[in-house]
């Protein structure tokens, strides 16, 4: 009278295999769930019972104990319900022996016995595959997403009754259609291109450098000068996601409950939270089940903060750790979680509250100081590229198109991949300070230029390392092996003391 079914639950954005054990024994009719279930899991009783009855099956009038193993992990969400229902059927000998061996089961139940989609299918199926199951049964809507995991055989379930028949060898398993290709991607309702931006050649150069070397970028300037316009065009010059990164991104977005329609996410994420975003909304966390924040949703993509000065100072300072470590650590009793957060930060800001900036600024010194206090020096220091933007000059011409810039960026990215093949990072911006001297050598002339910056106190020690990384990216964009003095000088100007 005991049955065990493999299933999985979400912890953060990762799957955790869970074994659902169902024990049916003599005694007063009762139903209890043990093994750290959350409220949604506890509520499963009513849904499972109704689904069984609606499917023409019987609810055992006996003592039912459901154990979710391992006991120390908090189980969340409703994705375990189908596994509980199948466990009950197996324990009541309603399924042939061995029908559930090596099968992972995911799905939420409706009162009518239908099987409903669950969030995070990719992460859950991936975890099941790693734990050794050979096939999975998932809701129809999740079939395509589950199939992104190549190691398992995917079957789908429409209703509990049909699934029982299939498992008994009766009837055909339902088909799951591969994800329909939308004829129109909602993300690019307005095709963006760098050619839309007139002039601003230095700011464009800054954008190109940021894209090529994964440098964090800050534009400062009066409203209406095109800084937001430029920043929004960053994705158009970034190289596409690698297949393994695409899988990571899809897993995160699926686990966060964003519909992926079973398709691999191939476009780099571009997240633009509003400046009222709270700290947990930005970095993740929150009460109850910790959820990934914008930094995690921007993993392998861009986090765009417009009007940087309007964000809460605490929220901005919370970004410092993920900016440096490229992961977010969330500690909540009883577990601590690590969310991936390898994002590129692009920010825009007005130079002061009145927005006009020098030399036309009409702010008082006090109000300007109050505004700048919101952006702490250690936070601003994380930006490798900081550029002041003004409106284009009257006779400026439209610039290069995104396509031709992207070619240069892609070549520079390839060069970096080759250089850092033996290391754990692949972009100039991520070279640790300790190996800058070894990996980013300078010719005697370039070293002189670099020294003179430090001696003129244009740069601090940390700033000096950052300038070297940016100079390396400039050299990569030029396709040359050695960093030239001009690269150092340009890098110094790309890191101006704004705002």
């Amino acid at each position, binding site marked *: 009278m005991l049955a065990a079914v493999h299933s999985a639950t979400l912890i953060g954005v990762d799957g955790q295999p869970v074994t659902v054990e169902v024990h049916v024994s003599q005694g007063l009719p009762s139903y209890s769930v043990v093994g750290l279930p959350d409220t949604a899991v506890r509520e499963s009783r009513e849904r499972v019972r109704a689904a069984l009855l609606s499917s023409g099956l019987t609810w055992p009038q006996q003592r039912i104990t459901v154990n979710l193993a391992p006991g120390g992990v908090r189980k969340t969400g409703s994705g375990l319900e189908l596994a509980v229902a199948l466990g009950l059927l197996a324990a009541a000998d309603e399924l042939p022996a061995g029908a559930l061996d090596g099968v992972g089961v995911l799905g939420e139940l409706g009162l009518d016995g239908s099987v409903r989609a669950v969030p995070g299918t990719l992460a859950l199926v991936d975890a099941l595959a790693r734990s050794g199951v050979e096939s999975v049964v998932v809701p129809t809507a999740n079939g395509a997403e589950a199939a992104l995991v190549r190691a398992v055989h995917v079957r789908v379930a429409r209703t509990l009754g049909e699934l029982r028949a299939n498992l008994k060898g009766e009837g055909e398993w339902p088909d799951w259609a591969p994800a329909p290709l939308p004829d129109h991607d909602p993300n690019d309702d307005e095709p963006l291109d760098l050619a839309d931006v007139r002039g601003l050649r230095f700011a464009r*150069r800054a954008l190109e450098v940021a894209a090529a070397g994964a440098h964090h970028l800050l534009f400062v300037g009066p409203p209406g000068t095109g800084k937001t316009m430029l920043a929004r065009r960053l994705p158009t010059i970034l190289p596409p996601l690698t297949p393994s990164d695409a899988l990571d991104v899809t897993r995160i977005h699926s686990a966060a409950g964003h519909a992926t329609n079973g398709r691999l996410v191939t476009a780099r994420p571009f997240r633009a939270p509003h400046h009222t975003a709270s700290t947990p909304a930005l970095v993740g966390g929150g009460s109850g089940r910790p959820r990934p924040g914008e930094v995690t949703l921007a993993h392998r993509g861009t986090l765009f903060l417009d009007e940087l000065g309007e964000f809460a100072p605490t929220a901005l300072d919370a970004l410092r750790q993920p900016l440096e470590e490229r992961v977010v650590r969330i500690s909540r009793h009883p577990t601590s979680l690590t969310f991936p957060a390898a994002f590129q930060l692009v920010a825009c800001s007005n130079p002061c509250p009145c927005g006009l900036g*020098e*030399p036309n*600024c009409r702010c008082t*010194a006090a109000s300007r100081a109050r505004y700048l206090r919101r952006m702490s020096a250690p936070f601003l220091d994380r930006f490798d590229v900081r*550029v002041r933007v003004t409106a284009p000059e009257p006779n400026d011409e439209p610039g290069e198109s995104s396509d031709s810039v992207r070619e240069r960026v892609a070549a520079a990215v390839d060069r970096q991949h080759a250089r850092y093949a033996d290391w754990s990072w692949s972009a100039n911006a991520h070279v640790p300070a300790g190996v800058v001297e070894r990996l980013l050598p300078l010719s005697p002339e370039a070293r002189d230029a670099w020294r003179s910056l430090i001696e003129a106190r244009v740069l601090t020690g940390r700033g000096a390392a950052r300038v070297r990384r940016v100079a390396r990216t400039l050299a990569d964009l030029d396709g040359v092996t050695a960093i030239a003095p001009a690269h150092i000088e340009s890098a*110094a*100007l790309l890191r101006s003391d*704004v*705002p």
Partner: protein
Amino acid sequence: MSPSRGPTRPPATPLDPTEVAAATLACLPGITTARLRDLVARWRGPIGALDAITRGRVSADWQRAVQSPRVAELLARRHPHVYVKGRAGYPIVDDLPGTPEVLLAEGDRVDAFERPRVAIVGTRAATPHGLADAREIGGVLGDAGITVVSGLAIGIDGAAHEGAIDAGGPVVGVVATGLDIVYPRRHRTLFDRVRAHGLLVSELGYGVQPRREAFPIRNRIIASLADVVVVVEATARGGARITAERAVEYNRPVLAMPGSRRNPAAEGTNALIADGAEPLLEPSDVLLALGLTPGSRGHDTRLAPEGNAALVLRSCGGESATIDQLVSRSGLAPDEVAVAVRELERGGWLERAQGLCWPR
């Protein structure tokens, strides 16, 4: 701890009875300049006025105030210098309307009043250019041993004090509060430096808090203490304009630094020049206005820029510009402009601040 550090040592000579009486009158609660002048005139001097108050012939509140030991304690603790109008050592010699009856001062350099004095004033919302100019003029005067008088405000005032102190010159800071109040708080350190390198001066008694109306009244003291008034940057309506107007009234030469019409912080100075103020083109012009000969300082020793650097400097058009503007105006590539900007920066032709290039 008191809000600000007092002088570190007592003055060489203790205060005489007239000075004590004058300081006590200045510290009366709610007293105004006009009231003080009337009292002193009616009772024939500070001692007579204090005596009348003590005998209850003026006001019961003030009688109580002068009977309390508060002022005596303050004078014993803070050792101010007390300057009484009409007596030797009073720094304003000509007969001007509204000259304060009493000036209280704290600081280690009493000689600050014995030298030529130049006031440097300007707006609080100064540009980096203006701040650099104020600092430089303060430095030139400090070098020449001339006292720089200013108001210790944020912006031009602070920069002028800093420049003069850094050059080793004496300074006088005239405040619109009691000498034990530090306003603005951000200038705590500057207040201490002014005490160490000059005098902190006020006509107001101890404990008087900053009030909006007090600042224009204070400005007349700055104007009357100065032999020459220099306005570096001023907005169309601001305290610096008031100081300049008082200076004209008091027959003090006014020098104003011209600026771009695009710079709101130069509107006031340009207007002053239009109204007849002398334009200040070089920091050493101040020395000429004082009737002194400038030394060898001020000769341009910079090497003239060539090639791209010269082109980029011309592209600035004498005003601050972003790199984008320089690229666009010069027609050079961004990297070429970067190299040229750094060259100009090293040669002292250009300064970078707030993401902009400022020609000097």
